[in-house]
């Protein structure tokens, strides 16, 4: 993307193998910044559940204990936040969305998903971008239970999209016919959010 040359700016350069993994406009962080629009929910585990509903033949719900019994995988992924930071090689333990979907029969009309969370947060995703290993519900980060500020007890992780799509404090997936905007998507952020295409804001 062309830009006005900034007089006297050279930039901080990184080794090519790192720079090649930074989407356009992003910079590297080694810590884990926290961003959220409101208070951090603290739902007790005995009141937590995860639900798949909407355009499915019959909704399904797991308690925390039942969710823990689902097959897990470890993931090492790069994540990029629309606020410009990228963190490489983050390590998670979670349940693949593919595994969760084995428990329901999705209506063929249900091509889009609204992820919804404690605190009222929502974010929309195309189903096609959540299957085949592209998305998971994580409850451990770096071998430890996921902290509330980072979305614990469980958050969605969709590493190939900007991180606002990786809903913190997730409680369920709702299948829908149309690609309806979620929380940030209704407030000026991009409906899709691919960092490599720099889809930050609506119209990008």
């Amino acid at each position: 993307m062309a830009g006005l040359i900034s007089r006297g700016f050279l930039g901080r350069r990184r080794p090519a193998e790192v720079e090649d993994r930074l989407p356009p406009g992003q910079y590297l962080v080694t810590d884990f910044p926290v961003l959220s629009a409101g208070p951090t929910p603290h739902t007790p585990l005995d009141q937590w559940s995860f639900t798949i509903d909407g355009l499915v033949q019959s909704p399904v719900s797991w308690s925390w204990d039942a969710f823990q019994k689902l097959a897990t995988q470890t993931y090492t992924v790069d994540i990029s936040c629309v606020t410009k930071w990228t963190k490489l090689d983050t390590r998670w333990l979670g349940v693949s969305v593919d595994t969760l979907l084995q428990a329901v029969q999705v209506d063929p009309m249900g091509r889009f998903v609204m992820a919804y969370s404690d605190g009222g947060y929502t974010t929309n995703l195309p189903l096609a971008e959540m299957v085949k290993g592209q998305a998971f519900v994580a409850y451990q980060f770096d071998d430890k239970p996921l902290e509330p500020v980072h979305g614990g007890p469980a958050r969605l992780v969709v590493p190939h999209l900007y991180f606002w799509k990786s809903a913190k404090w997730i409680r369920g997936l709702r299948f829908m016919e149309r690609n309806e905007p979620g929380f940030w998507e209704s407030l000026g952020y991009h409906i899709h959010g691919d960092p490599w295409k720099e889809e930050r804001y609506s119209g990008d």
Partner: protein
Amino acid sequence: MQSVLEWQAGTLTAVRPETKQTKSFTFALPKWMVHKAGQHYDVRLTAPDGYQTERSYSIASPPERVGELELTVERITDGEVSPYLHDVLVPGDQLEVRGPIGGYFVWDVALGGPLLLVGGGSGVVPLMAMLRHRAAQHATLPARLLYSSRSVDDVIYRDELDGLARSDGAFEVFYTFTRQPPTGWTGYRRRIDAAMLGEVIKPFDKRARVYVCGPTLLVEAVANALVQMQLPIEHIRTERFGPTGT
């Protein structure tokens, strides 16, 4: 915000030092758009070989300042963009920006009050935009700012805040100093906690609309305390920055 946000070259017209670590930069924008207090702009730097990097900075100016954009930026020692803005950019230089961005951490007088603003460090910047907007509208709705700084030398906008508090009977500012209070200081001298928040929010009680901006620890403490006080969560809006907000 449905239209495309285009990059535009703003021209730096003024630089004002605020504290040792922060400066306010005023830009004239060719395609200025009205914003809401609390929103931010993206800034993009481009090197001669095409390398680019971007950051987001809160808007300090009120929407009433037509044609201009003021950003207050803290200089992060090992940062990539803030040292450039502080040390290299001079009036007459151009800087690529696009915005305004963000639709949740925003306030205008139509949303009403009473308004409680809680800030830590440079987290006061978007809150200042809200106060400037409120003043520009001659609004009389009650407003309070609880502002945490390390020392009095770290307080951004001190003269303006004190002036506002003197001239406006409906606005009060409460400072707290976490490291070095000024000599003879009788006010708060600790991190913001539930007890302090309870004292400052008291006249507003659960009717308060609260905006909290600062480091994660401060925002977590304040937001959790407000939830405990049973404020409706949609009236608690937060903006956080970690140690990496360069």
